[in-house]
């Protein structure tokens, strides 16, 4: 009786997740194998046309490696920018920690559309950076900062940096400062301490942060479409085009699943290479 009553607590959420997450994902899987049709989202019967369509057209097929590369570049930039920040906050005094933590979290409090818009103001041809450089007489023509991979990676790195810093921070804060002091007193140089003590201990944070940023980056829609304009076509953008603008549901679903499986493989390879311990 008691166990039955306790299970009533989880029943609504369990039903919610099952009906509105698990079943819908199964629907996507089924949809990807439906027959295509003209004039309506999908036809009668089943086929693998959606998958064939993706791999037979270079425009679509080639978007996959470039999207994965874009995701990896964003992840790398986030790691390079985020690690010193996480280290700084982890070792900062209590007074500073709150403020720095606030700065790192601030992008999360501002919608993704607004943040991407901020980047278009900064990077545009007559944007803040180009206008400043031109007024200083350093350049004649605007630098190509936007509508290309460079701009998209930069903006994506900004949008997802908190997701790198937070896991890094939680793993760095678990390090006992006494270990570093011990290494110091035994004569280790600061870089050696970082390489042999700090970095290995922070590895779970590095792994979690990299996986989070990578998955978020390759599935993002707003930033590539606003900062990339029509020039940067990621697979996610093509999926939405196919589903919403062209009403090709089987094709769009197949493309979404191919992207998800590829991303999963990249994550698995990364986990394998970094000897990740799954918890």
């Amino acid at each position, binding site marked *: 009786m008691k166990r039955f009553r306790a299970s009533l607590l989880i029943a609504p959420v369990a039903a919610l997740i099952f009906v509105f997450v698990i079943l819908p994902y199964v629907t996507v899987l089924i949809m990807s194998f439906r027959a295509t049709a003209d004039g309506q989202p999908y036809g009668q019967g089943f086929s693998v046309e959606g998958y064939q369509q993706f791999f037979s057209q270079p425009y679509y097929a080639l978007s996959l490696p470039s999207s994965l590369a874009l995701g990896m570049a964003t992840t790398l930039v986030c790691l390079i920018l985020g690690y010193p920040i996480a280290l700084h906050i982890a070792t900062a005094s209590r007074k500073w920690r709150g403020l720095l933590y606030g700065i790192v979290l601030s992008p999360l409090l501002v919608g993704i559309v607004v943040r991407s818009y901020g980047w278009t103001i900064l990077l545009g041809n007559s944007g803040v950076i180009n206008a400043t450089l031109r007024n200083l007489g350093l350049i004649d023509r605007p630098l190509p900062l936007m509508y290309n991979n460079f701009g998209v990676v930069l903006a994506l790195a900004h949008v997802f940096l908190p997701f790198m810093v937070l896991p890094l921070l939680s793993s760095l804060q678990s390090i006992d400062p006494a270990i570093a002091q011990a290494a110091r007193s035994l004569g280790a140089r600061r870089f050696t301490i970082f390489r042999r003590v700090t970095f290995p201990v922070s590895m779970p944070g590095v792994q979690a942060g990299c996986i989070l940023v990578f998955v978020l980056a390759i599935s993002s829609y707003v930033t590539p479409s606003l900062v990339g304009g029509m020039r940067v076509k990621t697979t996610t953008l093509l999926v939405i085009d196919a589903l919403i603008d062209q009403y090709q549901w089987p094709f769009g679903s197949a493309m979404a699943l191919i992207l*998800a499986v590829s991303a999963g493989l990249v994550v698995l390879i990364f986990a394998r290479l970094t000897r990740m311990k799954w918890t």
Partner: protein
Amino acid sequence: MRIATPLLAVFRTLVYVFLLAPILVVVLASLNAGNFLTFPPQGLSLRWFWTFLNNDIFLNAIAYSATLAACATAVSLVLGTMASLYFTRHAGKHAEAVRIGVLLPLILPEILTAIALLFFFYEIGVGTEHKIALFTGHVLMTLPFIFLNVNTSLQGRDDSIELAARTLGASRYTAFRRVTLPLIAPGLSTGAVFAFIISFDTFGISFILKGTGSAPLPIQLFDYLRFNFTPEAAAVSTVSILMTLVLVVAADLLFGRRD
């Protein structure tokens, strides 16, 4: 190493600037007196805020987003707290499965969840017209934030205080209201603020499931930005940033001192 330390400090400062720059630049752009987003600005003015205040499309979008966020947060508060109580007290060896299950909407790519919901609601014959799909999506996106925050309040505390209250004759309901609820109040308030902001700002779910008619603010702003370059969008964004800021500060003043 002596040279590396100041270099690292400069690098860190640049990263902090990098984090704040796009947000500050939006606020500055909203004060531009010119017709376009030129830099340096052609004088300062509040004219774009005035334009925005006379633009029903954006005002409706803000009201719509706020209503949606409030409703989704209310439902998530109830469901998320129940799930959290189960997770911390009764889940036993299924705890990890429960945790992953509730966090699924956070772990899975939002845009893919949105597409999945779109198909699902069409397959069961409901579609996106009645906003039920949109609302369900927002509940799913906000649920993990309530769950995580209430967990933090409950962890390390067993249900013995509540049991004590029951032994002393309190009804199940009284024990919950007088003992458990004050215990999880900080988690509930932080979770609610998070949930509201997530719902207010979320894009993928709203973009795919919005249906026809009125759309949430991020969608309205996105559509506007694709074809317009006036500082009005910056004014709208600034108002949205200020709303979030007010919410966070108010929540901190009201509930922040408790823990």
